[in-house]
């Protein structure tokens, strides 16, 4: 199994900060699996994604993509292999859904190239898979939160990446769209053997859908491994500073037995 992303002893601190945003983080992302990145607010999830994707440069340590240091990749070259869905982006102009998805072809077409049949097919397929084809002509400023998120995922898929990285893709979505998004990620890893890295706050869905989880706290790796290994009462209570119970998912289906987190009412005086 080839490693998509490999981080060794990565430390990062923001200019002027007295504490490291990331401290000696190790992470290796294998092909064709769904990796969840967990941790409380401010634990360094977004920073880790930025360093991993070359947006920020590690203060020390080593980051590589497919065996090559991340800094050596040309931006356009890596964009044909890795797609990123940021947490949010400004919607200043009423672009059409299709126009936004077509932007995913930029790394393949370049500044002066012309879109060919391959590009059009990739856009069409991406819109189909992400379920946005039915409103391809609508301006993005009129979309609901769920529709907009799927449109942005469609743009990432139009890049035809090997690896898809998402930063809290379901943060503003209701239960229906959140489940749809996770089901979509599962289909992409299973059917198209995409590698997915997702930062999320939803522990229970991460436990059900991810094969690997990395739990960050204050920039350090608190636990890493399968959901069963990481989701222990002690670890989660320490990281999230709240009393919880870990219960097996009641099923039915392949989720049965997966650890699920239930926050408890704290004993008097703790909260």
């Amino acid at each position, binding site marked *: 199994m080839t490693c998509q992303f490999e981080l060794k002893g990565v430390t990062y601190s923001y200019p002027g900060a007295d504490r490291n945003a990331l401290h000696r983080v190790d992470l290796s992302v294998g092909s064709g699996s769904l990796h969840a990145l967990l941790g409380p607010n401010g634990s360094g999830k977004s920073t880790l994604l930025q360093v991993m994707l070359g947006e920020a440069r590690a203060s020390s340590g080593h980051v590589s993509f497919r065996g090559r240091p991340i800094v050596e990749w040309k931006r356009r070259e890596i964009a044909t292999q890795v797609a990123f869905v940021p947490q949010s982006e*400004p919607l*200043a*102009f*009423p*672009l059409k859904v299709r126009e936004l998805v077509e*932007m995913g072809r*930029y790394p393949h077409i370049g500044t002066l190239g012309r879109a060919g049949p391959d590009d*059009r097919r990739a856009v*069409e397929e991406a819109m189909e898979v992400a379920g946005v084809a039915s409103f391809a002509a609508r301006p993005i400023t009129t979309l609901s939160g769920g529709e907009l998120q799927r449109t942005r995922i469609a743009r990432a898929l139009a890049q035809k990446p090997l690896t898809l990285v998402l930063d809290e893709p379901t943060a503003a979505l209701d239960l229906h769209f959140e489940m749809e998004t996770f089901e979509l990620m599962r289909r992409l890893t299973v059917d198209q053997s995409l590698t997915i890295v997702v930062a999320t706050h939803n522990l229970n869905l991460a436990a059900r859908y991810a094969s690997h989880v990395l739990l960050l706290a204050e920039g350090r790796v608190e636990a890493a491994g399968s959901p069963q290994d990481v989701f222990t009462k002690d670890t989660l209570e320490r990281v999230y500073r709240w009393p919880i119970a870990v219960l097996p998912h009641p099923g039915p289906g392949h989720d049965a037995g997966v650890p699920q987190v239930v926050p408890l009412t704290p004993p008097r005086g703790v909260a």
Partner: protein
Amino acid sequence: MPTCSIDLGQTWLRRLGYSRTHFTPALAEMARQTGAQLRLLALFGLTLGVCAIALVVGPVQVSLGDVLLVFRGRADPTVYTIVMSLRVPRIALAASVGAGLAVSGAVFQALLRNPLAEPYVLGVSSGAAVGAVAAMVLGLTATSILALPVAAFLGAVLAIVLVLAMSGTAGRGLDTRVLLLSGVVIGAFFNATVLLIINFADADTFRAAMLWIMGSFAGASRESAFTLLLYVGPALLLLMVVARPLNLLSVGEQSAFHLGVDVWRLKIFLYVVTSLIVGACVAGAGAIGFVGLVVPHALRLIGGSDHRWLLPGCAMAGAAFMVGADAIARTVVAPAELPVGVVTALIGVPVFLWLLRTRDGLA
């Protein structure tokens, strides 16, 4: 309606046994490109029409027939002088300035992801005016024809640096309120600086310098029109080359970065080229406001925000708008003249206010 014809094509193709995923996109793309081309062609026609009207109106009425005679070299010498030495240079200057300012407006809007951004509103035009006036008063304009546009360019760059520093570009999108306030405050400061500088000038320079504050094409000559065209033409072409990465930048710097755009280099390139354009336009005709706001906004309503259509469209519509505004400026109070900036502001400010209202307050 384009959607209608696409649907017809789709059904037709399916009946012939072609799959939807292979042909609809190609058809839709064709329809879209044809649509954009037709719109650009219509704008080109509009620009020519406005220029033709601007050739005939003015203190001295000249008929279109006379103009044709001039171009064939068989006109009365007075008419010849009016058309060739006054109106043609003036129209060429107005068209170049209009195209330059409208395209710069569209680029600023994408750069700052804010449809209210515009060289004049951001104070960039005022910065360029300070540079131009300073060069005049210091007598640098006598040393080289490059002195004026270069000084205006430096003034524009200074204004951009100040506005961006004040509104804090670090992080994500700029807050509209802070951005507009910075632009207004810095613009006011630069306007005051212009007035301060021209107090030290002789009477002739004073009168000429007043034009930089109000904006006027009264000083147009063949040389000034030609020089400006030399600056603005290539700069506009350079901007159109990067229309596709500019589209990406308009949805966010982080997204553009991860789609393979060298964001830092692109931004520097865009700021430098737009400063050059604004500097040259202000050096040629003064600080004329709101063209960069009205024109891109109207074109976005007509044909969407894809810069591959928007930038050439802004070049043509901006030229038409400015030539038209100048024709109004020199006819409504004839034989006197209004500064053209008065006309563009009278049209532009209501549009600005309306835009501000429709953008959920100021958010």
